[in-house]
């Protein structure tokens, strides 16, 4: 047996022993997901237990170094662990923007103290983070953001910034404990005038207001800053170089969203819908063409990851995957709605689990907007990969 085979057997055994049965059935919806943080209320004892056991083992962030709360697994070991979790149907013990986004940014740009402090908190599910990027006047054109941090030299209370402005589309800002936020610290330099700041959402002057979406849910907020004081040491990377951190992080976000083409697998959703599809030849044909694209996207993702690992992928390639993956997911949900027929239109009924199909369908429309619109992705692919001329 190779080392990886031994690891697989051990991981399997650990999961069998430690993952509670209730955590091996799929989460019903957002409210079933463990986000951690100061105010998080566990839905069940099993959810709490599963998180605690994973924290102790480093399995909330298996590929992070042990010093920062991870298990120090290699990419291959991480992949195996995920495979074994998928086989048993284990839920993710902890979902968090800290894991997906801030952590990787800290790992690359943070100081040793920041890594130990913030990454450790993330790994243990103690602090729930939100992301302050977009502003009302800065969506696709993110670099136009205006939220301003005025530098205050204060030998007594400590040097700090006083932040004023507004963010929008801040995911779960009303539930988050801390925010990682892009703040303009130099008005004279567009790209090199932004800093990447971290601060507590309970700081005086921070307020949030949920935005109700077409899905009826409110996962996003408007976030307001009114003379918010942020100490100087709460910066990631150098002053005025926050755009580098943001760009790096957007790359991660695009990779994450590009992985959202659906169930993460290659199983066709058509088989379960056979009864309907057999009576609807044109819909069946659409489903068949979708499956061609779905298998293609899986193979494409596999090839992209293999090329990425060996350094052969173009640095802008994740933009292409984000475009293809999100458009595919929208198409999938259109088909799910068509196949579901009138029942899929039900918005509140128990038999539809509170209109989950309709709400998911509407939610996916944001896939090709958030984290860079499809149109921006196509701009990037065209200019950076295809090297088309023009600004």
């Amino acid at each position, binding site marked *: 047996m190779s080392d990886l085979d031994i690891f697989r057997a051990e991981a399997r055994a650990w999961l069998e022993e430690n993952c509670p049965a209730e955590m091996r059935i799929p989460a019903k919806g957002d409210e079933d997901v463990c986000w951690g943080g100061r105010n998080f209320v566990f839905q069940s004892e099993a959810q709490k237990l599963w998180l605690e056991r994973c924290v102790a083992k480093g399995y909330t962030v298996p590929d992070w170094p042990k010093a920062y709360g991870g298990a120090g697994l290699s990419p291959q070991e991480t992949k195996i662990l995920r495979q074994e979790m998928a086989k048993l149907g284990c839920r993710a013990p902890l979902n968090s923007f800290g894991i997906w986004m801030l952590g990787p940014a800290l790992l690359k740009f943070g100081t040793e103290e920041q890594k130990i402090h913030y990454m450790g908190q993330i790994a243990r599910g103690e602090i729930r983070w939100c992301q302050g990027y977009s502003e009302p006047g800065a969506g696709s054109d993110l670099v136009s953001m205006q939220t301003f941090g005025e530098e205050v030299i204060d030998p007594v209370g400590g040097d700090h910034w006083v932040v004023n402005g507004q963010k929008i589309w801040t995911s779960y800002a009303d539930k988050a404990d801390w925010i990682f936020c892009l703040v303009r610290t130099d008005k004279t330099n567009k790209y090199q005038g932004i800093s990447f700041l971290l601060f507590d959402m309970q700081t005086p002057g921070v307020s949030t207001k949920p935005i109700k979406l077409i899905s009826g849910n409110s996962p996003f907020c408007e976030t307001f800053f009114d003379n918010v004081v942020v100490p100087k040491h709460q910066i990631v990377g150098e002053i005025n170089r926050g755009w580098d951190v943001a760009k790096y992080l957007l790359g991660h976000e695009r990779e994450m969203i590009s992985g959202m083409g659906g169930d993460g697998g290659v199983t*066709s959703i*058509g*088989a379960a*819908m*056979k009864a309907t*599809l*057999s009576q609807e030849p044109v819909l*069946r*044909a659409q*489903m*068949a*063409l979708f*499956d*061609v*694209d779905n*298998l*293609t*996207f899986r*193979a*494409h993702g*596999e*090839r*992209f990851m*293999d*090329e990425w690992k*060996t350094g*052969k992928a173009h640095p802008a390639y994740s933009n*292409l995957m984000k*475009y*293809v993956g999100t458009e595919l997911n929208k198409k999938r949900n259109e088909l799910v709605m068509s196949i579901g027929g009138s029942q899929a239109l039900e918005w509140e009924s128990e038999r539809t689990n509170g209109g989950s199909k309709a709400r998911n369908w509407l939610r996916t429309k944001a896939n090709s907007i958030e984290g860079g619109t499809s*149109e921006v*992705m*196509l*701009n990037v*692919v*065209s*200019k950076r*990969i*295809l*090297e*088309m*001329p*023009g600004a």
Partner: protein
Amino acid sequence: MAMTLNDDQNMLRDTARDFMAREAPVTHFRKFRDMGCKDGFSHGLWKQFAEMGFTGILIPEADGGMGMGQIEAGILLEEIGRNLSPSPFLTTSVAAVAALKLADKAMRDRWFPGILAGETVIGIAIEEGVKHRPEKIACVAERSGNGFKLTGQKQFVVQGASSDMLIVAARTAGAAGETDGLTLFAVDKDAAGLSMETARLVDSAVAAHVKLDGVQVDADAVIGDVDGGWAVLSKMLDAGRVGAAAEMVGVGTGAMDMTFEYLKTRKQFDRVIGEFQALQHRAAHLYGEMEGARSIVLKAQSLMDEGHAKAELYVAAAKAKAGLACNLSVREGVQMHGGIGMTDEYDIGLYMKRDRSLNEFFGDAYYHADRLATMSGY
């Protein structure tokens, strides 16, 4: 396995790329087209393929070939597609060899040496209607004397009239629509009762309509098992399908590269047209489609080489996706070239014609999407 080419495969690709660009570029294709060549390809080039070892790339080493897999054959086919190099490679070295590999030693000894030497060409006589429906084969093979007597008709037998032998699928039992009861035969081109009428296709290939009027063959003409031909036929068709898909990746990529180059040089309204966002977005979308096609084709090839149970499913997806993407590439190619794209003098139209033929060959995208749906359980 990893979804990237290894060092050996990269080397093969470089060799094939140099070879096709040097010996069989689009000008080569034009030359044979314009002379109205009866074969639609150059026997000299076929010999050169043999000297490079290409013709026997899928023939087992024990039989004197290179013993390689679909990935390697696909590498050659992509370069063939990119250069529109006309040759019997797909029919003879890919599809026919896939069937003959499953034949007995006497059969292999009879045909492999000629293929290895670049002297033998083999036609695939499957289709009986204008669309690909292998399970509907009605051509009959009755037991007669020491062997069988074949009666029926075949069409879309590419390079049929230039072939030394035709692989003919006929029914020894059962009825049209059943997969059981089919048998594959190696039929000599000059057999009594076999006649052909040739037709030049839109891409200048020459296909044959074949009439089998009581063609007598010996029992040793059977490839594989009597009544069990579906197994051999499936292997042959899947090799042909994944091969055609790889060639379409080449055709589509060739057309795409040519189009992107044009976008960067053609000026209108005082600027290079590649500056226009309307074209940039379509270019980027096309690139994504071609990259997807390349990925699913590679996936299907590696699953076939592994003998994976899901290979058939992925071959269907690959043939469908490569067909759709390549078709998009040539359509966008002609449109983005504007008026010049409509001229015979410019190459992009030749890619459009080749795409049409390859899409139809061994089943089009709709056929394979339907198959994928059936295999997926709906």
